[in-house]
């Protein structure tokens, strides 16, 4: 089966989203900055789009690389991880952070602590 891709371009204060459906493998990439004043306005429709694009969430990798993230987005991303995990428990999350960025690293560690059953891998760059 061929690969299908859907992209949402980054805006001033929201990240690029790439959704990739490749056979039985799913990939979601969130990359850039996330600091919209009302993060619900971005993350609610995003969640809806994910549900319409992917037939199922089994074998899904969520690859997140955010340079800046406001605290409201932080919560929405946590909810997103939770929502996907509820649909399928073979979710893996890659949480990328700049080696000089203590806050983003701490956020990844918080996710690991909150979801001990989800495979969340912290990757420094």
């Amino acid at each position, binding site marked *: 089966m061929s690969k299908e891709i859907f992209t949402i371009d980054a805006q001033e204060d929201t990240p690029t989203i790439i959704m990739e459906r490749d056979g039985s493998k799913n990939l979601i990439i969130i990359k850039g900055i996330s*600091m919209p*004043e009302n993060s619900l306005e971005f993350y609610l429709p995003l969640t809806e789009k994910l549900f319409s694009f992917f037939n199922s969430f089994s074998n899904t990798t969520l690859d997140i690389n955010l340079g*800046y993230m406001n605290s*409201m987005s932080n919560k929405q991303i946590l909810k997103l991880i939770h929502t996907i995990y509820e649909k399928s428990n073979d979710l893996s999350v890659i949480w990328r952070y700049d080696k*000089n*960025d203590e*806050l983003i690293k701490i956020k990844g560690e918080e996710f690991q602590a909150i979801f001990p059953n989800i495979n969340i891998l912290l990757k420094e760059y």
Partner: protein
Amino acid sequence: MESKLKLANYASQFPFILFYQGNYLEAPTISIIAIVEQHFKLTVKKSNLKTAIYTLIEALQNIERYSAHVISSEDFALIYSDNHYLNIYTQNMINNDKIDNLKKKLDSISIKDKEELRETYKEVLASDTLTEKGAGLGLIELARKSENNLTYSFEKKTEEYSTYSLSFSISINDEITENNNNVASTFNIIETLKENFNSNTSTFYYGGDFSNDFIKSLLDLLKKVKKEDKNSLNTKTHHLLIELSQNIKKHAYKLSNKITGQLFLEWKDNGLEISTYNLLTKNKNDKFSKKVESLIQKNYDELKEISKRQLADFSQSDGLGLIDIATLIYPEKIEFYSIEKNEELFELILKTKLNYE
């Protein structure tokens, strides 16, 4: 905090104020322009804004051009507006041997009327001196656009250097109004700014809106002029600025046609202080004070624990920002100073500090 409050109160009468003192070598002009432009783009007629921005570029590049780049705390620009005029004041250190030539140019420009300025402009433009650095075209343009209200002065500091200051106002509103703010008020602000920021190695001070456009332009400015800062300090600074600015946007009480809040970035010998000023309703002030008082009692692990709990609680949509701020600046603590303005409103100054590693 008292002198900060005095400045904040004084500046509150203006819808916009920006002051940057520091390094003008790394071309901060573009980011400063972006901040001014995004603030006025919805309220000022495009052609007026274009003229104002054009003169502002000249004025800021004037600092870059004439500065001896020796003591960056002596190089600064103040830009503020009452919505009728954009008032600009620049100062920089200059080599004493450059003064005569510059002063001659300024003296000759300042006595010319509109028509004479137009002629001089055309002459200089056509002449061979165009390739010379500082043929004076920029200054002539400033005189023309400001209807020749340039004020300038030189003050000798050492055998080698003096300070050179230049100020003018540009109308940004077609209605003709008396410009009350020009000389006396600029002088007052400069004095209060100096009182506050004299010992800083560098300062960014801003009052205006706190949109994400503003935050992004500010981050761009910091990336350019604060390249020498340690990376980790930079990322912390950026996270802090996003949370603090969005806090103002979300919680500050806004009086009509006035600035929402103010932001102070002060580079000291041992670290960076970031403070904010804004009005709060009594109710929000009580909530804020209680929350911060509890946060400053906590150690690092406790802060992380609180953050985790707050994050995992889907019923709560608020409150993570302050916890993040407390965590980011640890072991420093959030300081705040809130005083009653009237029965309903409080003035709040919140101060955070990041130490150099």
